[in-house]
């Protein structure tokens, strides 16, 4: 089988449980069409470098799996049809991978650089000094390094 990774960006409005449910469904699409999921990583809500479908933030999800091209096509079809997905990208990482040599790993959850601003923030207390923070931080560059380093694979190729 071939090793692929697909990254999709979900609308920022999609809440925690809905994100998990959607991700579980996508894993199922891979599995039921004959693929083997290695790992699903939720990178959390991140600020987008530019707007996509009027969203300035999005939840990044990284799916690593073994499959053949048909499975990728089926997964991408599902991603395209979903209103939750604002962008997706699939990349071929390696050819001729023996599925027996790759174990399924536990899901990974990371904190993005733009977690629910305003939603999870504690309500302002009257006792607190009235210091006005200057809007949202412009650059959240520090958290941009949160992307995971994948196992080194020679010469990745584009799929699709």
């Amino acid at each position, binding site marked *: 089988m071939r090793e692929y990774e697909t*990254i999709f960006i979900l609308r920022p409005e999609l809440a925690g449980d809905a994100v998990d449910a959607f991700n579980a469904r996508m894993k199922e699409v891979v599995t039921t069409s004959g693929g083997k999921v290695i790992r699903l990583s939720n990178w959390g809500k991140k600020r987008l470098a*530019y*707007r*996509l479908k009027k969203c300035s933030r999005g939840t*990044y999800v*990284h799916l690593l799996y073994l499959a053949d091209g048909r499975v990728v096509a089926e997964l991408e079809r599902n991603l395209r049809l979903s209103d939750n997905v604002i*962008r997706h*990208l699939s990349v071929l990482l390696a050819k001729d991978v023996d599925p027996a040599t790759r174990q399924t790993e536990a899901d990974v959850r990371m904190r993005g650089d733009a977690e629910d601003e305003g939603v999870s923030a504690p309500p302002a207390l009257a006792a607190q000094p009235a210091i006005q923070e200057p809007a949202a931080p412009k650059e959240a560059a520090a958290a941009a390094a949160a992307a995971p*380093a994948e196992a080194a694979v020679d010469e990745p190729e584009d799929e699709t």
Partner: protein
Amino acid sequence: MRKKVCRYCVDREAIIDYKNAETIRHAVTERGKIIPRRISGNCAKHQREITIAVKRARQLALIPCTATQLD
């Protein structure tokens, strides 16, 4: 003028990963354009990897496509 060498050939630790914006940030200009090989001195192989990585990162909105892309 000193001879430029490919920093990715010299430094094995220097990785190129489209998923990690930090690893490709210095491969583009402030305006977000890919720095050409004649300036950076990268070898053809690594420049090719950079180009692919930058384009993928742009697709995923991890890095901007242009200088003043506010929306």
